[in-house]
């Protein structure tokens, strides 16, 4: 099982994965949260992870981030073991309200990532303005998070993550708390941002449509303990479109398959 990822690599002939889980097991407080998870994510790939609540999808993401260390097995990034978080890996948390610094303005929140990266203060303002423009927040630099809507706050958090110039973007149900319209807008923006930067993405969501709409590949986890139950390649044309992609027969086929899986996994 430990060589599953290697075998996949040998068969597919694809380049070495950027992130690789090798038979990862994680126990927290005597409970096995994730068991024997093997998984490779290729550079530039958009991987979505879905699953019933409590299946360990967020935990898997935290392992990829280096926020947790596996009890056994290995998590590698670019061939090196992940012992702690890295600057090339940015995390977008679901609870933007808690992840932003309430005492800093939008510009100040973006600046934090630049300061952590050691960028000289003279170079920061231009970069901050550019990043805020990229996420659609030009002219909001002086606002505090408490003065912004949920969608704007999540954009701001994404801007802060982009300031890290990440090779990998880990997103933990980033749009889970947003309304449907805002969510669709942000899905498309994330797709174009990722296409522009070429970043690898692991995107955790409980919204199956969202997973298929965004991903190159969707992995469904089974709960108690978390393990891979289904793996689907999404061969839908890019750029994706909110109407035509969602009406595509392939989309509907994958959607049915994924819904059946989730339903079965809950029993």
């Amino acid at each position, binding site marked *: 099982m430990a060589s599953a990822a290697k075998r996949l690599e040998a068969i597919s002939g694809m380049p070495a994965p950027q992130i690789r889980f090798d038979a990862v097991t994680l126990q927290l407080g005597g409970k096995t949260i994730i068991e024997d998870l093997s998984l490779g994510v290729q550079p530039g790939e958009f991987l979505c992870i879905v699953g019933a609540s409590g299946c360990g999808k967020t935990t898997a993401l935290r392992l990829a*981030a280096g926020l947790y260390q596996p009890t056994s097995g290995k998590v590698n990034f670019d061939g090196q073991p992940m012992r702690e978080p890295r600057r090339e890996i940015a995390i977008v*948390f679901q609870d933007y309200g808690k992840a932003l*610094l309430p005492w800093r303005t939008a510009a100040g929140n973006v600046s*934090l990532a630049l*300061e952590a990266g050691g960028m000289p203060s003279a170079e920061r303002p231009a970069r901050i303005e550019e990043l805020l423009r990229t996420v659609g927040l030009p002219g909001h630099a002086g606002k505090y998070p408490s003065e912004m809507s949920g969608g704007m706050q999540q954009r701001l958090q994404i801007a802060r993550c982009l300031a890290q110039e990440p090779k990998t973007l880990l997103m933990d149900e980033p749009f889970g708390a947003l309304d449907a319209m805002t969510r669709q807008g942000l899905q498309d923006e994330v797709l174009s941002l990722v296409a522009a930067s070429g970043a690898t993405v692991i995107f955790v969501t409980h919204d199956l449509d969202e997973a298929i709409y965004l991903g190159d590949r969707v992995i469904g986890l089974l709960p108690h303990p978390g393990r891979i139950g289904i793996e689907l390649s999404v061969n839908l044309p890019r750029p994706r479109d909110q109407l035509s992609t969602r009406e595509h027969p392939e989309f509907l086929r994958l959607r049915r398959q994924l819904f059946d899986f989730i339903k079965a996994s809950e029993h």
Partner: protein
Amino acid sequence: MTGNSAKALVLPLGVLVALEVWARATHLQSDSLAPPSEIVMALFGAFADLSILAATRDTLFSAFTGLAIGTIIGLAFGIAFGIFDTFNRLMEVTVEAIRPIPSIALLPIALIALGFGYRMEIVIVAFACVWPVLILSRAAVRSIEPRLMEVARALRLPPAQRVWKIIIPAALPRIFVAFRLSAGIALIVAVTVEIAINPLGLGAGIMLAQQALRPDLMLAYLVWIGIIGYALNILLTVAQRRLFGRAALSGDSP
């Protein structure tokens, strides 16, 4: 607002007038009481000969220096205890054993070690000010949103920046409340030390007036100390609202 504060003044003013009338009617002869008008006159007198201003300077110098030292020590240990749980558990018994010692009980030791004067008073004030700041800043650091600490980890913020840019600002609204508490304590302890033994400042002024059988002057000092404490609290409350109105609000909401 004005109507309310006007109403709030009715009772104290009434009491003052009643006291004045009573003192005049009974031709008050006392070592501890004086008619309000004489207290006011004594206060003006003390201002005129600058004695109360010098005393105020001495007391506030000791109180504020002690407050500053105590706050810095309390803050350093409070933040360290909040961050490093092991350190906290190692020190917990020591802290809990020292903390209940009334600061004024240190007076004899401080007197032998440092003699009369500012230094002894400052040390005792500082000792009293350490605890509220230490206990509250430790709690404030512990209650920082864990997500913020994860953001700091994910951004690979160096430890010093983590303290300076995340922990202190996140805990600052509650640390300031502790500072306000300590400021009140500083004034109380400074005056107490002066009354008990130290021959300077407002406390010594009260003792001197008492020994000179001047109840009017003694009470004038008392009124003046009340005014200073009241002003200090208002100043710090306004500062707190100005500085942390927003942070306090957004820090509490989910």
